[in-house]
């Protein structure tokens, strides 16, 4: 198994922002590809037991995306626009279609740490504290155990 440090999170008390940081045993280019290639993205975005279907995907500056996650027979659709796509940064909007008025602004940074490692930094700005609340609370029902089971299978299958 990898010895990657776990995700760190910070919920800003003054702005409806969630910031996260995670290091990966991969190059920024690989990380970028896992975020922009729809077939790869669908493999890991989850949630755990979900099968993710990409409905639309145009990972270019000014492009847009939409995918559908199926959890326990229920479909949840998400969509947004790629405001800017470049090798070291992606800026995009994010809407859960179940809450169609809510829109978050997400920024992802891919930082090269050298030696085949990189750091992913993300910042998600919700449009209100209530919006961030709903966001934090969402997906609580998704089975944590199912997620770990799926993870274990992927680790078993992969070249780890």
């Amino acid at each position, binding site marked *: 198994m990898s010895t990657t440090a776990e995700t760190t999170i910070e*919920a800003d*008390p003054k702005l409806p922002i969630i910031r996260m940081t995670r290091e*990966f045993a991969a190059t920024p280019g690989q990380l970028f590809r896992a975020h922009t290639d729809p077939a790869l993205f669908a*493999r*890991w975005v989850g949630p755990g037991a979900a099968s993710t279907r990409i409905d639309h995907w145009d990972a270019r500056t000014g492009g847009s995306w939409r995918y559908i996650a199926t959890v326990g027979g229920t479909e949840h659709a998400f969509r947004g626009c790629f405001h800017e796509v470049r090798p070291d940064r992606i800026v995009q909007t994010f809407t859960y279609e179940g809450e169609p008025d809510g829109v978050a602004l997400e920024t992802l940074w891919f930082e090269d740490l050298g030696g085949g490692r990189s750091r992913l930094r993300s910042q998600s700005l919700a449009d209100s*504290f209530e919006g961030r609340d709903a966001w934090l*609370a969402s*997906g609580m029902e998704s089975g944590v*155990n199912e997620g770990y*089971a799926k993870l274990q299978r992927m680790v078993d299958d992969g070249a780890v």
Partner: protein
Amino acid sequence: MGAMATDTLSRVFAALADPTRRDIVARLAEGDATVGQLAGPYSMTLQAVYKHLRVLEDAGLVSRPPGPQPRPVRLETEVLTQMEIWIERYRQRAEQRYRRLDALLATMSPIDDKDGADDVNDRRDDHRG
């Protein structure tokens, strides 16, 4: 966790959406204070401060235990702890997602070829339980 916890969290976030109320919470984190002491630095009426305190009380963030006047305002850390639990669960979901990404990245070649991950068996439809 259920609807009740969600409502509590909504009220907490709504209460903390206001800069004055965030400031009151920050100052109460250093110790109990009377309404008069809290109002000191602000250029607003005592009534306005009471209004803010009522919102914080409704969210369960502060309390004013009964006693002789002036009753001190106290920060209720239990609700903040609940928020931290929700944030930690959110973090754990992200960590699960990133572990799936770890496994995927391990199958990709560092060279930017387009089919580096084709050898991964697709087990997405393999549901359990």
